[in-house]
């Protein structure tokens, strides 16, 4: 991945996350944070895939980061967490694989379609599991915070 590609992907993810946020009508104050969380989540996924971690682990760690970062943003901004993690999740959605699956099912090539179906299910499951882990991290962190006070 060259530096230009990197910049294009940062800009693309940032703009896309903010765009999705506007479609969901999230408050203006939250847009910038949501955009950067989207960028970070995608790059965690991207770098894990580049370093050979596999797309399942990549999506999972991306979702973990989105969950943890969203809670921090929610604390800083004093706003609900879902304003940040819903738009930020969009770059991780397996849109490409889901489309290929639909396409091959429509064309009648079921064996190819099943390969993509499995990928879609694995990625969705990985993202859901990533959220679960982030919730775990968040709850542990809240306990520690409360304990310290």
């Amino acid at each position, binding site marked *: 991945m060259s530096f230009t590609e990197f910049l294009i992907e940062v800009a693309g993810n940032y703009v896309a996350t903010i765009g999705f946020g506007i*479609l969901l*009508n*999230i408050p203006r104050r939250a847009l910038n944070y949501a955009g950067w969380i989207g960028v970070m989540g995608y790059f965690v996924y991207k770098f894990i895939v580049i370093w050979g971690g596999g797309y399942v682990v990549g999506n999972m760690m991306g979702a973990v980061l989105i969950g943890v970062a969203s809670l921090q943003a929610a604390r800083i901004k004093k706003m*609900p967490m879902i*304003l940040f993690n819903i738009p930020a999740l969009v770059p991780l*959605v397996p849109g490409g694989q889901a489309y290929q699956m639909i396409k091959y099912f*429509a064309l009648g090539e079921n064996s190819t379609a099943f390969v993509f179906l499995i990928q879609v299910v694995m990625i969705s499951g990985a993202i859901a599991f990533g*959220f679960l882990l982030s919730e775990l991290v968040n709850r542990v962190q809240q306990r520690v915070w409360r304990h310290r006070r």
Partner: protein
Amino acid sequence: MSSQKKRDQLILHTALTAGRIMIENGSEVERVEDTMERIAHNAGAKTSQLFVMITGILMAINGEVGAQIEPVKRRTFDLEKISVVNDLSRQFAVHKITLQEFSNRLDHLDKSTKYFPFWLQLLSAAMVSGPLEVVFRHNLPDFWITCVVGALGWLVFYLLNKFIQIRFLSEFAAAATIGVLAIWSVHLGLGNSVDDIIIGSVMPLVPGVPITNSVRDILAGNLVSGPARGVEALVSAAAIGFGIAMVLQFL
């Protein structure tokens, strides 16, 4: 005694309205329960019992009045309202506003919808489609046509959703429009790859709110609301898929 009764009535009304607004606009159930409990507690109710589902809320507080039900009939995605209810609840907790003011502002919030201007929504639909096409498929030449197709697809979704108000049908029609436009634009030589254009253009329609809330609801132990939202997400995804598949059949 009567003033206590009035106060209890107001507490119930405020908490139920706050809960209904939050569910209607796409909040997860745990947050709704938390907010309603806080409102009741801050208003001086010693205990409160809640039963929150995504189709209705049941709430009782100790006092003169009985439990009350608030049905949730429509469901849209407007995260700004959730944020506003959250802010109001925080202000009420530190006694910046009274319970009566809180209640009035909730009633007012319920009626007013403050969306971003339409052109900005259309532009952001384009800005979801094009950049994500580049990020997913690394196909820079098709960037502009994907923006246009994505914006038009979202326009179809928006207009249909306004007039027929069946989300799944609007999604289906929008996906079919995107498919036709993508094939047509490649046919006219405006784009290179039908696949890439469709993948990018469909992204604004992704049911992000139900997916996220479904996972969070299930994790929080709401085994009724979580799967219900999951079904919502699944039907949305299927509607989009059928729209695309139908067009591809005629390729």
